[in-house]
């Protein structure tokens, strides 16, 4: 098996169109305004996303999907991460795979909407749930798609990431593993690789333009080498996600590959977010600079579903 990780022309088109849409409609700085929080900006373009074919991109044509595969889905997931898009878009992308024939068309058209529920020992968090008809419940045991009204009463709570709207709920959904759980885990990993890549780019741009001691700070090795480390981590996470997507179902141990992607991307997203703040100095510590948003989102997503301890166990499984 020989793997080529260079995007095909078709994949490049997929990437260009999602990036184009996101650049226009979901620029990161939208989150400086609280009225864009909680997935509001995403809900406003939900139909555009559906029309772009995002919901069903990797679903087989015979099941009504676009007929691409995981490689195209991860391309989208990475772009979503780079734009700090609401996790609900990933939830919807997964929901179509989990849905039965009756529900699927409404999810694909965007008429029905999904949001994540993170089910953990002692509670559950519904994330950006406004307007959702379905919940993609994720936890140690895997994933399940349920109707939103199966969740207990929702009680708002603020998490570390104030740009998402969260409510405590309860759920008794029985989660299951398997290929769709792995797909979800890989999409989340790639979303985090997108976070890691975006903070690398932010840091590099700042290092090129910000001057101190009469030099752009990127000329100083202390900053330059930090940027190199950002690039190393982002590249490792991204290529592992892509490699896993391409080889999925082709004889590798997918569970191990996905778990590696998840661990690498989670660490890269967090470490890069912290380093990006550090490189931005005082500015990076303010709420006015976008650097902190990536840190907060990294914590949120790295704790969605499988825990780090569980991920590491799967790598050695």
């Amino acid at each position: 098996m020989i793997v080529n990780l260079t995007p095909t022309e078709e994949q490049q088109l997929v990437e260009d169109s999602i990036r184009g849409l996101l650049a226009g409609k979901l620029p990161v700085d939208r989150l400086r305004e609280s009225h864009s929080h909680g997935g509001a900006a995403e809900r406003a373009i939900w139909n555009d996303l559906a029309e772009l074919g995002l919901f069903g991109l990797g679903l087989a044509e015979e099941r009504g999907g676009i007929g691409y595969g995981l490689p195209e889905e991860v391309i989208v997931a990475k772009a979503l991460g780079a734009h700090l898009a609401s996790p609900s878009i990933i939830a919807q992308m997964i929901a179509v795979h989990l849905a039965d024939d009756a529900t699927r068309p409404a999810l694909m058209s965007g008429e029905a909407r999904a949001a994540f529920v993170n089910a953990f020992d002692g509670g559950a968090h519904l994330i950006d749930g406004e307007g959702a008809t379905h919940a993609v419940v994720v936890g140690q045991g895997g994933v399940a798609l349920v109707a939103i009204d199966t969740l207990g009463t929702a009680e708002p709570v603020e998490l570390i990431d104030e740009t998402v709207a969260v409510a405590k709920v309860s759920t008794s959904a029985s989660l299951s593993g398997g290929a769709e759980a792995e797909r979800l885990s890989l999409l989340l990993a790639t979303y985090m690789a997108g976070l890691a890549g975006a903070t690398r780019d932010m840091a590099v741009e700042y290092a090129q333009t910000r001057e101190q001691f009469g030099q752009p700070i990127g000329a100083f090795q202390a900053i330059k080498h930090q940027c190199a480390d950002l690039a190393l981590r982002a590249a490792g996470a991204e290529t592992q996600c892509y490699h896993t997507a391409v080889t999925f179902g082709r004889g590798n141990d997918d569970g191990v590959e996905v778990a590696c992607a998840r661990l690498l991307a989670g660490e890269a997203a967090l470490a890069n977010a912290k380093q990006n703040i550090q490189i931005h100095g005082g500015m990076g510590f303010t709420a006015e600079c976008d650097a902190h948003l990536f840190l907060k989102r990294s914590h949120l997503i790295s704790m969605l579903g499988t825990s780090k301890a569980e991920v590491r166990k799967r790598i050695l499984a």
Partner: protein
Amino acid sequence: MKIIDSAELDAFREEVRDWLADNVPKDPRPHDGAAMRDFDLAWQRRQYDGGWAGISWPKEYGGRGASVLETLIWHEEYARANGPVSGSMFVALSHAGPTLINSGNEAQKQRYLPAILKGEENWCQGFSEPSAGSDLSALKCRAVIDGDHLVVNGTKIWTTYGHLAKQQELLVRTDPDLPRHKGISWVICDMETPGVEVRPIKAMSGLTHFAQTFYDDVRIPLSNVVGEVNGGWKVAMTTLGFERGTGTVPHQIELSKRTDDMIAEAKAKGLLDDATGADLATLKAEVAALRSLTVAQISRGMSEAVPGAEGNIVALQFAELTRRVNGYALELFGPAALERGGHPDYPLEYLECFKWGIGGGTNEIRRNAIGERVLGLPKGPSAR
């Protein structure tokens, strides 16, 4: 290397402990805003009334005149009694006050020092500028002499509690033709002077700790210049802490407590396995190292008047370790620990601790200082 034991110190410790037990505020300290400032000022006044204000300041300026050992005991007991952080009084007590004592004239001392100790006036620092960052000598904020006043124009940034302070220690460029380190003056600026405009800056934690200040033809009496006009760099560089490294003791003890609490909570919740145990043991060992480094720094302070550059080692260890400890809590306690508003509020503590290692000397600047001033490595090819 020895244990210092004496009946006098034991008695002093007991006195401190008793007073703190009776006086440390029971109400939680507000996180920010005027309520926080008022809390800090009231607590300062209470210490003043108890005879504890300016623990290490010389007696002639109203301080307690405590020795290094007594100061250390004060800070240890203070931390153990959960005494509040000095917060919006920090600059006045640990920087502006000592600078005035060292370099101010008698009139300045009489005017400003009692007001600090009594909790009547707090101070902020106006050193950093948007375009200068870590490079103080590049500051541009301009002051022109006009009669018996300075007229200041420019801006300062990262001024901690600038929006809540009464006075400011302000560095301005009084002669742009002199070399970079010359031509700077150290001035007392009343924040209520016309032309001073303060824009609070929200931190990523959601709290508002600092501000940017804009100066538009701000007239400051020449009598507010501390030291010589154009001699401000020297004034700023010779500011001596009287605390001799003891000021970091509360932070170190606090971090140690936090780590032990986290370990206890992990045990109680059944989260302690070989993997988390290995991580927690490493953190606890690093906390022990921080404690020992702090003790070593204070030990040097007992015999050396001028604090050495080794303080950067303590500060660097603290800055990096506090991020690791507070970050690990989020990982250890899972999604529930991401919720805001709990006790402790893990995300708040975590987000706040990024300020260490950025404000008051970045980790990079500290590593430069350790390399150059502790180890004697040559300065870099360019500016530093």
